[in-house]
Structure formats: structure tokens, C-alpha cells
């Protein structure tokens, strides 16, 4: 495969550390919830247990993502000078970890405490290794929510207003929104929308319910619209 992570020693590729950390945190939380969310039934075979495959899945997610995180080309954040040079600070941090691990183990029991300590450790490591490009990348990820929002708005409006009108409006407005304002592009968007509705709803009769608005149409037109558009 041609897609490879660049292995520049100084500069990890943007977002990799952040993604690995977020995925690892989610996986660890899921692993911590396994006892609560799955059952271990007495008298059943080991391989037929309902917990067996979720354990493989979630366990594998934690193990392999942690290894992936470990292997990422990364560069530690440059800490302030006093932090780098103060011995007492490093001693204090080590002590903090020991106290946290022992405290949680005594409080929750060692098995329940392990994912918590691991979780805090991931957050600490992520804080240490994240790069300013990671934060810029996170903004780009967040910007996609706009398109997802458009899509969900489209989904919400179809059962209310109708597949044909919403599709035409959606493709026209979105084409306008992404920057095509010429007459040719607007016409293309309109024609495309009508074609999609005709092919899928009228010809292939795909299951898309008739809209609430169609109920107000007069007799024959109403059933025609509900069936075809």
C-alpha cells in the first residue's frame, strides 16, 4: 500500500498521537465496563461464553492500540525550563503515580483500579507527546461535524416535507454552500436531485416513506405523490 506514515524523526504526522490516545481511552473504558456489560454463565463452555468474543475484541483494541501508540514516531513537548531542571518535580511525579496506583487499588480493588491507572497514564503521556499540529488537526476533524449536520438535517426533513422537494432543496443549497454559484452548477445540482428521486423512488421503489406534508394534497394526487416522490 502506498499510504505510509512519514517517519520523520522530528515531526510526527499531525493527529496521529491524538487519534491513538482517544481510541485507546475509549477502548480502555470499554474494557473496564466488560464485567458490567457482558455475562459469564456457569456451566457453559469457555468458547461459548457470551463474554468470550467481546473480550477478544476489546482486549485486542487495547493491546494493539497501546502498541501502536508506543511505536508512533513522536517527540516530547518542550517543558518549561524549571520543570526540566527541577529534580524535586520528577520525584514528586513518581510519588504521585505510586500514591495514585496504590490508593485506587486499595479503594476499588486491584483489577478495577488497573484500567483507571492506565487511563490516567494515557492522558499524561498524551499531554507530554502532543504536538501543536495535533490541535490544528483536531479543529479540522471538528469542522466535519458541519457536513454531518447537513446530512442529519436532510434525514430529519424528508419524512416531514417529502423526498423530492427536500432532495432538490438540499442539493441546491449545499452546492451553493460549497462554493459553486454558476448557473451551470445549480442546474446540474437540480437535475441530479430529480434524477436520483426518479431512479430510486419512482423506478426502483426503494423504501422511503411518504411525507407528512403530502397528506394535505387532494385525493388522487396524494397517493400518486406518496407512491412516487
Amino acid at each position, binding site marked *: *500500500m502506498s*499510504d*505510509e*506514515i512519514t517517519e520523520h524523526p522530528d515531526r510526527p*504526522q*499531525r*493527529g*496521529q498521537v491524538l*487519534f491513538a490516545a482517544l481510541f485507546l481511552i475509549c*477502548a480502555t473504558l*470499554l474494557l473496564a*465496563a466488560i464485567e458490567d*456489560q*457482558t*455475562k459469564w*454463565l456457569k456451566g*457453559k*463452555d469457555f*468458547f*461459548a461464553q*457470551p*463474554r468470550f*468474543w*467481546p473480550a477478544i*475484541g*476489546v*482486549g*485486542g*483494541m487495547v493491546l*494493539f*492500540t497501546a502498541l501502536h501508540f508506543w511505536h508512533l514516531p513522536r517527540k516530547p513537548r518542550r517543558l518549561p525550563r524549571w520543570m526540566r531542571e527541577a529534580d524535586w518535580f520528577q520525584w514528586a511525579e513518581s510519588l504521585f503515580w505510586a500514591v495514585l496506583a496504590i490508593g485506587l487499588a486499595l479503594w476499588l480493588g486491584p483489577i478495577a483500579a488497573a484500567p483507571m491507572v492506565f487511563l490516567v497514564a494515557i492522558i499524561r503521556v498524551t499531554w507530554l507527546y502532543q504536538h501543536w499540529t495535533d490541535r490544528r488537526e483536531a479543529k*479540522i*476533524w471538528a*469542522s*466535519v461535524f458541519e*457536513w*454531518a449536520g447537513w*446530512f*442529519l438535517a*436532510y*434525514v*430529519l426533513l*424528508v419524512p416531514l416535507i417529502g423526498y423530492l422537494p427536500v*432532495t432538490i432543496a*438540499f*442539493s441546491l443549497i*449545499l*452546492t451553493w454552500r*460549497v462554493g*459553486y454559484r454558476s448557473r451551470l*452548477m445549480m442546474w446540474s*445540482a437540480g437535475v*441530479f*436531485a430529480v434524477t*436520483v428521486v426518479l431512479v*430510486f423512488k419512482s423506478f*426502483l421503489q*426503494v*423504501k*422511503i416513506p411518504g411525507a407528512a406534508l403530502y397528506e394535505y394534497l387532494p385525493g388522487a394526487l396524494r397517493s400518486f405523490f406518496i407512491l412516487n416522490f
Partner: protein
Amino acid sequence: MDLIYDFLAQVQASSSVLARWDVVLALLVGSVGGVLIGAIPGVGPAVAIAILLPATFSMDPIVGLTVLLGIYGSSMYGGSIPAILINTPGTAVNALTTYDGYPMTTRGEARRALSLAYSSSFFGGIFSVVCLIFFAPILAKIAPMFGSREIFLAALLGIILVVTAHRKHTLIAAAMACFGIWLNTIGLHPASYSKRYTFDQSWLSGGVNLIVVVLGLFALSQAFTLLHGDDEKVRLTKLKGSFFQGFRELARHPRIAGISATFGVVMGMIPGVGEFTAQFMSYTYAQKSSKRPEDFGHGSSEGLIAAETANNAVPGAAMVPLLALGIPGEALTAMMLSVFYVHNVIPGPQLFQNDMDFVVALYLALLILNVLVVAFLLVATNQLIKVVKIPNRFLGVCILVLSFVGVYSLRNSLTDCIIAAAFGIFGFVMKRMQLPVVPIVLGMVLGGIMEVKLRSAMARVKTPLDFIDRPIAAILFGMIVLVLALHFRRVWLDYKERKKDEWQISHASTSFPAILSRRRNYILTERGKKLRAKRKTFSRRLTDKD
């Protein structure tokens, strides 16, 4: 001889299946649609198949599968057009075509490159279908030997191969495969009716639908990527003349074409391997055995033949594990598996025993498809290349509109759409970082198969060795061990090489503070002072008088 007679009888029986008007229409739509989709960079067969899946559920299985198979088989033909003309692969598997195709275009040989690509694709496609039609009776004899444990081991082998095929991304690919396995376990456990990871939410108790995930990961994420990106400026060269000369040129390289097609067929049959490995192996073989290996990557016709023949030989072969064992080897066949399930046609050994007509009909459809596609391309290439000019963000809008049909028509559920949108965002993030998403889909499908098969296989196993006491199980187990051993050997060699490189190219840092600090050391040390004093005698300070 018996085999051939059997086969001819099968063909006769199956051709009646294909003579229906809806199948013919499906063939036409599949072939033309596939070429168009392939020719548009940014819309691959995965996007198209994901969107069309729910629409095919209402069709007859043979019709629905013909459309999907048509798109799968013909998209690579279309994908070679932008790969050759504008150096942008139309589908991911055409990436290797750009190596030799585009340099030929820059030399003014665009028409030659295109016609070579068409003819070698045609050869690859036909070769694989013919091989498989002749294999089908043998497969029908072998397939019943696969019991639960063999199918479990084959699925496990598939998942391991998918993971190890992602070189340098093996760890994250493994994590994603496990993510897929976990996703598949959400909902009610069928054997014990206990809830798994439902968090007491009613919408999770039915599980996460594979098609919703696929639509999110492939279609919506692609739409988001296109909407987010910029348009590319495209300059097209005008093509004149016919495209027939490629067949003549291909006939001069029968060895390369034959061996590349064989690689394609073999790699296609192994689940989880697919086009990339087949192309890589055949391209390397062609380069090593060529009289002019230095031309490869600079417009070598042999390189083009190797790449295009190998990738087109895969789709036919990829149907083998799907039909004979019910194990999909890649994302596209995994999607097709859901079409079978919807129609209650369970692919597997029984299909080969009871429904051989159906299998042969599918292969014949693939054969006819290849002929249709080449005929279409020979006539319509000049008009077809204009689709490359469709602007990217507009394509994004189109995919978003079409994705709605795919997700919403499945169950008319808003929840499905939200899940698909979430996976779309996840897929977008993965795409941004060039991480693999295919293992998620295969993890979901193969995870489900493994769960069921392991449960039924373990019921009859007393000691661990019983699991591999049958010959096919033992062979599969041996293959798993071999693949893992080879993988770890490669990891070790990579590690050694990397360490060696690190030692060889360790040089002084080029950062600005480091340069300043070296400069200061040079100025302040005794040796520095001496050196400056020495140099002063040879080049005295310039004055105005000199």
C-alpha cells in the same frame, strides 16, 4: 473429459438464468455504471456498492448480485483512465497503473497506454473467469470437506492476512480488526440471549448493522473528504484513433500477461490478500524478468500489462472463498455477502452442491461483463473521459444525497443515519491520517463467522489437537503459523534495517540552537583559536589599500 461434459451441461442450464431481461439490464447497468464510477477519481466501487446495497435487496438475488459484481469487475477498467491521463488513480487499485501509464501519456502515447490497459484488463478478467469456471466442479468437491473448524480457521487466516497485508500499519490494522469484532458482538447474544454492550439502550439491543457501518465508513466519509478538500485542475489530452492496437501489443507479451493473471487468480482466492499483493508480485516479477528493467516506472508497457492484468484477475477469484465457504476476503465481497443473507441464500459448501447453476450463472455474467465493458470502452472512451472534470466538492454533494438513499431505505430509521454519520466522521479521521478502515468491516463479518463456527466446532473437540486432526484443518493451521512466522521475520528484518540506517546516517543536528552552540564551542576552544590564527597568515584581513 467428464468434468468438461459436466461443465458444458452446467453452462447450458445457467445460460437460461442469464437470458432474462432484468439480468441483461443489470449487466448493462453494472458494466457501464462501474466504468463511470471507476473513471471518476474520488468515487470508488466501495462507495457505489455501499450505496446500492439496500436498493438491490428488493431485486432477485442473481439480478442484485450481477449489478454489484458488474460494478466491482468494471470499475478497474474505468479507474485506469484517469490513472493514465492525469496521474490520479480512479480507484485505489489503479495506483500502480500511474507508474507506467502516466509517463507514456507525457511521451504522447496516451492512446497506446489506454488501449494496452484495456486489453490487459480484458485478458486478466477473462483468464480468471475461465480458470474459475473450470475449477468450479473441483471446488464443488472440495468445499463439502470444510466443516465448522475449517471455516473458522479459514476466517482466522483471512483476518490475519488482512492485518499483515497493511505493512507498517499492522498494529493499528489489528486494533481496527478487533474493533470490528467487538462491534459485531454488540446486542443480544444469540445462543444465550444475554445482552452485550448495550448499555441498556433499546436501539443497541438489535446490534450495529453492517451496512450502516459500511455506508458510514466508505460513502459518507468519502463525501466528507471531498466536501472538505479543494477541486483539482484537470487538463485532458485529446485522443484520436482506435484502441485496438493494444491487443496486438499484448500478444507480444504472453508470458507476463499469463503469469500476472495467475498471480491475480491465486491471490484473489486467498481471503484477505487481494489486488495489492497480486499487483505487487506480478509487477516485481515483470521487472525482474524484463530485458529492460530500467524502463519500469518510466512508461514501460510490460509494467502496465503486469499491473492491469493482475488487478482485473482478482474480482472473479475473490468470489471463490465467498461462494464456496461464505468467507469474504475483502470489503467489497463482505458487502456482497449481505445480499446473500437478505435473500436467505447462504453461501457455503451447500451452495455449490445444490445451486451450481447459480454459481456458474454468476461466472458467466462476469465473462459477458468483461466483453461488454471492453466494447463500451472501445467506442466511448473519448466521451467518457469528460467525467474526470466533475468538480470534487460537487461530487461530495452527490455522494451525500445518494448515501441518504442507502442508509434511510434500509429501515427508515433516524438512529441508523446518526450511526452512519458517526462512522462517516470516524472514517474521515482515518482517511486524513491514512489509516486502514477495511479491517473494521472484515472484523465485523469474519468475527461473526468465527463466533458461530468456533462454538459449534468446540462442541466436538476434546483436546486442543483434535481441532486440527482433519487434513484441511491441519493445512490451514500450518498456513496460519507460516503467515505469522513470515510476518514476525519481516518485522525483525525491518527493525534491523532501521537500526542500521539510524547508525549510518547519524549526523550533527541541523537545528538553529545546535548550530549556534557548535559555533560558540569552535570560537571558544583552544583548537579553534589556533586554527583561526593559522588561517590569518594565509588570508590577511582585507583593507582598503589592498
